[in-house]
């Protein structure tokens, strides 16, 4: 089973299917969707006056 999943994961389609459909649904309970990049920590986030 693991070998099958690894083989499947090495093909572009298989990797996407595994990530976006099977595991994305089973493991996370939702499909992968686009999110904006960044969201790094900014010092202002800890501004106590905010």
């Amino acid at each position, binding site marked *: 089973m693991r070998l099958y999943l690894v083989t499947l994961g090495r093909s572009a389609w298989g990797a996407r299917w*595994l*990530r976006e459909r099977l*595991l*994305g649904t*089973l*493991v*996370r*309970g*939702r499909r*992968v969707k686009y*999110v904006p*990049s960044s*969201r*790094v*920590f900014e*010092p202002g*986030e*800890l501004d*106590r006056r905010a």
Partner: protein
Amino acid sequence: MSFDSAALRADALSQVPRILGLGDRDADSPAYGCFDRNYWQYRLHDVANARFQEVALLLARLFRGQDARYAAHPKIAAWAGAAVRFWLNARNRDGSVNEVYPHERGFCATSFSAWSVAEAVALVPEACPDPRELVRTGEWLARHDNVEVANQQAACALALLNIGLATGELRFCDEAKRKLLGLFNRLSPEGLLLEYGAPDLGYTSITLGLLARFNRKQPLEDICRVAQVNLQWLDRLVSEDGTFDAAQGSRRTQYLYLYGVVAWKHPLADRLQRGIEAGRVVTPGMLDDRYCIQLATDYVETADVHDTLEAPGHAAVPGDARPQRLGRPLAA
């Protein structure tokens, strides 16, 4: 010992913005509290690596610490709590956790992350209002061992001790001592801690730190004896400028953790700090995201324990206060 805890703490704190950026800090996000950025942000992994959640301990230390940017800051406490909550929810049904693939049930990941989370909960109780949520992880750890790898076994023992103290269930504290007994029965003939059959400098330093933390909570003669032998071994292999030949260790680890060295007030600490100041020793900023968190946490805790031991009126090296013999059950 001329050890400068402020310099060590500053080195760790320089990495905190980077580490905070690894976390999903959006309270409305389903992955709120997840610090595996490859999972929640880049979607490169389908399973969140539980070891990133060890950041909870660093955040809890920052919340209880002295640095004005983070001390007693409600957001730091909230993110520590979110990291703990994500870890609790990401566990398998039996209490174990995964690093790479679903249902992996990793002994290393479960031991280290459980120790960090339980310690964070001890420091910031609101991070987990019901510590009994930790019980099933304690039960899983009690059923599993990896005596071939000393650092993992020591982490398991410390996790069990922390869970026992958090939940008030002494059976976990007794299991913790049993884990240490298993570890100490597998030392080399010289008394060295073994990683896959041979000692390793970096992992020995990690294990010494775990044993020192254990000893501060539950002093045991056996821990002090093992620590002294292994500290002497490290002392022989680390040069005056704090560098060492990683190839001499079974796992060729390139970094050293400081907590155990400082907690036992070993002069090796001064040499390592000279190496840090000279840029010749691997520090948290040189490590990848995965290991930066743990080494930065070690630096912060090392600075804290140094200040505690050097505070006026604090005379005892951990474990010097009436240590017990290993094998005597706590519950008796």
